[in-house]
């Protein structure tokens, strides 16, 4: 008889992959149902559960491709990127990467970016809370020292950049829309900020400079270096305006003086 480890390996392989050698190695009592049908019950439960989890996190992707296509993609995804945690709240982070390399979805070049946006929305809802930035403390910093500060981006904030108009695609495919409104893919690129406020998760289109600025702060660059990055991405970038805007909307929640090694802005 197999050890518990062998039994669980074979059970897992037979259930997820339909592996016939693994199934044959399992000491399953048959009866009215044979071993294959019994493992089939578990396969249906396991795959059905992941389909539900992924459909809940990626409703727009599902609407764009249809239920049957989505379920097939989900089944492939589960096998290519098995869950590693006991809480499915965090399952699905690789779905965008998977879709980018999934041959049946090759025609839909924007689909992975829609998946990235939906994952950002999903994860923003369960990220840590953070108190607003202490404006008094910031006001007490000497003006010539501001550029050397590092700022913390809200744990729920997510930045999405795409060459496609993903926000429009996302908006016209909400459950309360017909889904038939045309979107011109030539509308151009999107730079988005996903954040969580008192009324829930919100998506906001932000300027390229703001996007580069927040991304640089999130990568622990100093304010001065982040402003340089932003100006390089967008000549219209205005540091004072951007800082006030993103402190006010809680995208930036804290600041600190960095250790010396961070100060060069090298990543």
């Amino acid at each position, binding site marked *: 008889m197999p050890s*518990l480890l062998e039994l669980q*390996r074979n059970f*897992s392989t037979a259930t997820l992959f339909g592996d016939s050698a693994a199934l044959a190695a399992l000491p399953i009592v048959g009866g009215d149902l044979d071993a294959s049908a019994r*493992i089939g019950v578990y396969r249906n439960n396991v795959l059905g559960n992941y389909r539900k989890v992924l459909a809940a996190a990626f409703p727009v992707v599902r609407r764009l491709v249809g239920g049957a296509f989505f379920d097939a993609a989900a089944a492939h995804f589960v096998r290519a990127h098995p869950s*590693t945690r*006991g809480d499915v709240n965090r399952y699905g982070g690789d779905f965008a990467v998977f879709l980018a390399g999934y041959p049946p979805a090759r025609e839909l070049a924007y689909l992975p970016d829609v998946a990235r946006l939906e994952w950002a929305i999903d994860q923003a809802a*369960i990220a840590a*809370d953070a108190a607003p930035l202490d404006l008094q403390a910031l006001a007490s910093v000497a003006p010539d020292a501001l550029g050397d500060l590092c700022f913390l981006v809200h744990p729920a904030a997510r930045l999405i950049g795409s060459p496609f108009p993903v926000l429009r695609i996302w908006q016209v495919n909400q459950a309360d829309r017909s889904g038939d409104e045309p979107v011109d893919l030539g509308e151009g690129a999107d730079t988005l900020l996903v954040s969580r406020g008192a009324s829930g998760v919100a998506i906001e289109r932000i300027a390229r400079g703001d996007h580069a600025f927040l991304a640089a702060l999130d990568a622990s660059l100093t304010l001065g270096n982040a402003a340089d990055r932003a100006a390089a991405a967008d000549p219209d970038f205005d540091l004072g305006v951007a800082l006030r805007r993103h402190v006010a909307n809680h995208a930036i929640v804290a600041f600190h003086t960095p250790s010396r090694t961070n100060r060069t802005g090298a990543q």
Partner: protein
Amino acid sequence: MPTMTSLPLSVGIGLRAPHVAQVRGARPPCGWLEVHSENYFVDGGPALAALDAIRAYYPISLHGVGMSLGSAAALDAGHLARLKRLAARIEPAAVSEHLCWSRIDGRHLNDLLPLPFTAEALALVCEHVEQVQDALARPLLVENVSAYLRFANDAMAEWEFVAAVARRTGCKLLFDVNNVYVNAVNHGFDPLDYLAAIPAEAVAEIHLAGFDARGACLIDTHGARVAPPVWDLYRATIERFGPRPTLIEWDTDIPALEVLLDEAAHARQIMEARHAVAA
């Protein structure tokens, strides 16, 4: 509400996302609430804030679906740490897990998978139960699961395995009446034999739920009202163990909250008919 280390002797319901706002706002009369621990393995946000608010009004039971007590591999230390952090925050009246496995070689199937009832599996489950109890510094409630297959290398009956886990580790049992009924039908045993083998003093909670009988075997879907034979077995269960904190569980095709409260009222009638229930 004072911190409770055991559930009140009354009927509770499983609190799921579609009912959170209604429960938080209307605070319907209900003995206690049970949530899936993993749904709150989050860093922050509105779901956790809602549970923080609700726990001021109801005793909370944390019911885990992902610890994988029966894995041949070691317990997932990160998962255990997340449960410990949540329990410290919520101060639940009970913490429970399932007598099953779901994780092997770092891969998680996120389902309640059946164990062979062998000496090897028993020793391993007991080791893991003790590890969780040590980490949480409280007794764990361990729940029997539905199964759609049996292994040829079983060395004992399911009820002997369950009773042995409780005896060896001092853990409490979450006795799921529906799961016993589903297994009795699927595997052909008398559920009263199961009841007779379980040490009454170990049973700290009872679960009731609905199953799906449309396939070739009964499936524990938690997607329907409690079936009449399961109500009968519930009567026999509290006759045998005495009244115990009882939960109505519903996880798929979740109906209006009123349906769950109606099922809870039915359970309470049965409890009261047999025993005086503490207010």
